[in-house]
């Protein structure tokens, strides 16, 4: 989409949760992290606005209200492009670190790992990549690197694999 890096619309969640009990605080924070929010200040987080991000923050706002907190949702535009670039950079940096972890994990697998181990790690990392991808609004170059590293795990597995039969055995065995 155009406008992803020009000054765009952002959706902000402004909230306050009671200090105790701590469980809702943790639940809410986990959900926000999963969405990839950028924190603007204490109790204020932002995401680039689209139908999906807005809806997701709205449901979290409701959840905060239900546990006795305060929450409001705002649509905002940064006053300057520089301000927005700064937010985008912070988000991209946060995602880049996550991608780098994936790359490191994929490359850490030694050559003598069995095809089964390789496949298991590839599946796990692919799922993790998808999670990161969903909260990645300003993809950094590290994304391509991580994707390539995970793909390499799968490809190493493909030709002449000794892991054959994993998916066919069950059907054959049936009467």
């Amino acid at each position, binding site marked *: 989409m155009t406008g992803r890096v020009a000054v765009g619309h952002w959706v902000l969640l402004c909230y306050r949760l009671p200090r105790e009990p701590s469980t809702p605080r943790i639940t809410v924070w986990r959900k926000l992290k*999963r969405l990839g929010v950028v924190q603007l200040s204490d109790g204020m987080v932002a995401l680039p606005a689209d139908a*999906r991000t807005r*809806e997701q923050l*709205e*449901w979290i*706002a*409701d959840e905060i209200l239900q546990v006795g907190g305060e929450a409001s949702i705002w649509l905002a535009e940064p006053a300057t492009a520089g301000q927005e670039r700064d937010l985008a950079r912070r988000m991209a940096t946060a995602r880049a670190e996550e991608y780098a972890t994936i790359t490191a994990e994929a490359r850490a697998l030694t050559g003598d790992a069995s095809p089964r181990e390789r496949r298991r790690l590839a599946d796990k990392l692919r799922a993790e990549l998808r999670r990161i991808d*969903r909260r990645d609004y300003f993809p950094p170059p590290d994304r391509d690197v991580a994707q390539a590293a995970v793909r390499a795990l799968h490809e190493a597995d493909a030709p002449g694999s000794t892991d054959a039969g994993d998916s066919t055995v069950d059907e054959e065995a049936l009467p």
Partner: protein
Amino acid sequence: MNWATRRGVHIDRAACAWLIRRFVDPDARFCFVADPADVPADATAFDMRGVDLGHHGGDCSFETILRRRDLADPVLWRLAEIVHEADLDDERYDAPEARGLDVVLRGLSMVCDDERVLELTGPIFDGLYEYHHRAMLLGREPA
């Protein structure tokens, strides 16, 4: 009966509308509003902030309707897992269909208005229901 939900229908609202029409109110009429304040007085709102038939305790609206209307059909609860994952993607359930279904719905919402999305998704949910109904009877994936 009249029912109201937010404009820009996606997976949860499309599934709720299907559920309402098939299992709650065969004569259901739907309207789509931009703001909760625009819900007509005679309409029951769903999948909107601050209404009873919305997200509660980690449930999506489809699950909430099943609970509120005491719909215990296990096939509907299997569909609820798919809708939940397509909508919330929080990995509470194992529902590999969810990702594809979410993409189909998001794509549809780009090329159709809300009425049309409901028209097109009706048979899709009928089919999903039938598929999982047969799967449950057979104890495995149907042909």
